[in-house]
């Protein structure tokens, strides 16, 4: 708590000093964008220093001993903790809050669009709310699974006691609050209204809020890069004895391949935003067509990151869903090796398809064919993931609890998203679908369907591990069905709207589209209200749900072999991995042994009995 207060004070001081110094040196006014830039940078440094980077890390650079914080209980979650489990929970809580904030913005958008004509928002306000919604949700999609479950589970799943760089991990998390503050503070400088994609020339000439967008999102990128670096290093260097690459749980592979993408390609996003900042404050002309610059350069740089970013969103999601499916259908994951190859080839292919977002941008014609072909190639490994999910479920002993509900719904949702993606990747159809509500529906099926449903799958699957308690399963299933049905009713009409000429990012539309829009809006409110139930399920489960015990799902991977929540440093003795993680149905199969007591880390074999229904 003390550190948090100090961080806020240092952050504000840093901002004021940075802005004031810049103002003193160059004159003008303290609200100028240059002053904001330097203020933000110093403020960010002050914040990190105050929250604990100074005490635990920077001191060592000057030969002083690092200080330790002896904090216990819930206060750990409000400070600079290097424990990967604390950081995982910090991410989880933060991003659920950001998700709900983004959801509020979505409700406002749908309220405006419920009827044709100008409602509560004028066109400018509409663009601002829409941009805020977009960037908040993209941030959730990129970081929520990797940040929370990546941190919480990866070290345990590979038999390690923490991440490879615990202090860096803490810094990675504490970079997030300034991002949120920066974005939410944008209205003080006139908001940003260029969408989450922030295309120039608009993003170079619009209100000052855009500079906060640029600074905040660049900070977010830095956090993604450092997080990715940490996850990869952890997986490569800290696996327990016997944990070969072929024995890694599939979620670890998902986190690994997503981290690979975010480690490398996020730099292009940073570059594109830095160039925007330079054009705004330093007088460069990169995107100024009149002075010889090229706005298309931005789109190339931006999509070189932002297409792969969609796989940063879904690859950990694939992992969480497949993990849930294999444990809860009591069958080994179908085609494990092929899935691993698919993950890696998705990561590889994802960097050569970016220009499918630019078919109508006026880029060179000869690029259309290759980018169309490459984009459609991605369906092959993605199809492999579907095959694995479905074939694992096939004739499994399905244990129909909330997480498996979500995982099975996920299959449908992501299928819808993927299939509609093919129409968008096809140049001929995309020319008329681009920038329409068809695209909006597509990416809500892929991101909300593919990432958020996977996130929810993970939340419900690992909830007992993290809190030590069970949720009310009946409510969980009601939530799953409520959300899913409302989702279809919200987004299916948007495909129709798109093919019938409704543009995206627009506050008004022709009256004949009113019916479908109204339907979408009403369903969106129903969808949004389901999250009240969601929050209730989580809180009531965490506070007074029945005790879960170490292994409520009777699952084989390492995180289930320790208490819930796991003890500090995860294991009391060094686990040794002796077999495949998903040995369901194979007599005598074992995943791991522990140094002290030998625990058979495999599910009990019960031939002939129904393993599905009676585990409680």
């Amino acid at each position, binding site marked *: 708590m003390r550190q948090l207060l100090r961080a806020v004070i240092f952050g504000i001081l840093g901002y004021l000093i940075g802005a004031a110094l810049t103002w003193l040196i160059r004159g003008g006014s303290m609200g100028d964008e240059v002053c904001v830039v330097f203020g933000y940078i110093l403020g960010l440094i002050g914040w990190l220093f105050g929250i604990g980077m100074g005490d635990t890390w920077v001191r060592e650079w000057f030969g002083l001993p690092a200080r330790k914080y002896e*904090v216990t209980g819930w206060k750990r979650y409000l400070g600079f903790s290097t424990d990967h489990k604390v950081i995982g929970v910090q991410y989880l809580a933060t991003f659920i809050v950001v998700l709900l904030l983004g959801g509020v913005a979505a409700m406002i958008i749908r309220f405006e669009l419920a009827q044709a004509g100008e409602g509560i928002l004028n066109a400018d306000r509409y663009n601002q709310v829409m941009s805020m919604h977009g960037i908040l949700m993209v941030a959730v999609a990129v970081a929520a699974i990797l940040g929370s479950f990546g941190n919480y589970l990866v070290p345990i799943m590979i038999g390690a006691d923490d991440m490879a760089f615990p202090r860096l991990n803490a810094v990675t998390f504490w970079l997030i609050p300034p991002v949120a503050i920066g974005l939410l503070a944008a209205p003080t400088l006139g908001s940003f209204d260029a969408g989450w994609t922030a295309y120039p020339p608009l993003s170079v000439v619009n209100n000052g809020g855009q500079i906060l967008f640029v600074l905040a999102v660049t900070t977010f990128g830095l956090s993604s890069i450092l997080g990715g670096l940490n996850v990869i290093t952890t997986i490569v260097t800290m696996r327990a004895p016997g944990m070969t690459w072929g024995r890694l749980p599939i979620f670890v592979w998902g986190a690994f391949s997503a981290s690979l993408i975010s480690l490398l390609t996020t730099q292009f996003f940073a570059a594109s935003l830095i160039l925007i900042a330079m054009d705004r404050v330093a007088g460069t002309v*990169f995107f100024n067509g009149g002075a010889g610059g090229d706005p298309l350069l931005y789109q190339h740089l931006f999509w070189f990151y932002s297409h792969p970013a969609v796989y940063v969103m879904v690859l950990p999601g694939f992992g969480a869903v497949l993990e849930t499916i294999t444990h809860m259908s009591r069958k080994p994951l179908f085609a494990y090796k092929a899935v691993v190859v698919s993950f890696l080839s998705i990561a590889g292919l994802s960097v050569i398809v970016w220009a499918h977002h630019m078919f109508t941008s006026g880029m060179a014609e000869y690029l259309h064919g290759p980018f169309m072909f490459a984009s459609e190639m991605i369906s092959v490994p993605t199809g492999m993931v579907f095959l694995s999910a479905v074939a694992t479920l096939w004739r499994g002993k399905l244990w129909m609890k909330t997480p498996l509900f979500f995982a099975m719904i996920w299959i449908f949702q992501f299928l819808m998203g993927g299939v509609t993606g093919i129409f968008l990747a096809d140049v001929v159809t995309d020319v008329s679908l681009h920038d329409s509500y068809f695209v909006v529906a597509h990416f809500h099926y892929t991101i909300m369907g593919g990432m958020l449903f996977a996130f929810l799958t993970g939340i419900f699957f690992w909830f007992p591990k993290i809190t030590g308690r069970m949720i009310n399963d009946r409510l969980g299933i009601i939530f799953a069905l409520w959300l899913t049905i409302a989702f279809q009713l919200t987004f299916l009409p948007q495909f129709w709207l798109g093919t019938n000429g409704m543009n995206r990012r627009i506050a008004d539309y022709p009256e004949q589209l009113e019916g479908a829009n109204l339907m979408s809006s009403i369903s969106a409110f129903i969808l949004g209200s389901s999250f009240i139930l969601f929050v209730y399920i989580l809180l009531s489960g965490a506070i007074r749900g029945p005790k879960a015990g170490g292994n409520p799902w009777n699952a084989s991977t390492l995180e289930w072999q320790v208490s819930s929540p796991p003890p500090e440093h995860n294991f009391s003795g060094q686990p040794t991995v002796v077999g495949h993680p998903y040995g369901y149905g194979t007599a005598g199969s074992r995943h791991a042994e522990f140094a002290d007591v030998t625990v058979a880390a495999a599910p009990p074999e019960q031939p002939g009995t129904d393993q599905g229904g009676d585990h409680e």
Partner: protein
Amino acid sequence: MAMTTTPEADHSRAAATYRPAANRLGLWLFLASETFLFAAFISSRFVVSGTDQPEHLNQGLALLLTLLLLLSSISAFRAEAAMAHDNRKLFHREMLTTIVLGLLFLVGVGVEFNEAVADFPVGTIYGSSFFMLIGLHAFHVLTGILALGVVWNLGRKGHYSSQDHWPVEGVVKYWHFVDLMWVAIYPTLYLFGGS
């Protein structure tokens, strides 16, 4: 559960075995990531201004700058080798040499900027790429000098030995990397194309 902020986890059973590997891999991954950042800016230069070059480029100064950085990489290498042999005196000298060469480089960049503003200001398309690329690189040189300073200072206080000098190794690798990026930027701005 008390929260420990022990530096990179001594409580780990296996810390001793994975720590060196983790440090090294972490640094290499960071450098790989940074390479993408430089690649983004370098390719931007070619996208917006092809291989066009302005009339007045101070080729002599650029060559001198290149030379300074290459020399500093040699001294950095020697500093690391010196620490690996517990030769502290040489370590001090070579670290200082590296830092001084780095500072000279920055001064040179200042001079170059000063000239360039007149010939091709920021508001021209070549100027944009020029100031952006060299500015980005100079920023990396600056962080490199700061890191070298920190390590030099700790080395002076006797923090490292031939057995245990990862920070020296790390900062020197970073310095080589910054040098390498210059080797890509120099031809991008000064050598390709031309008038």
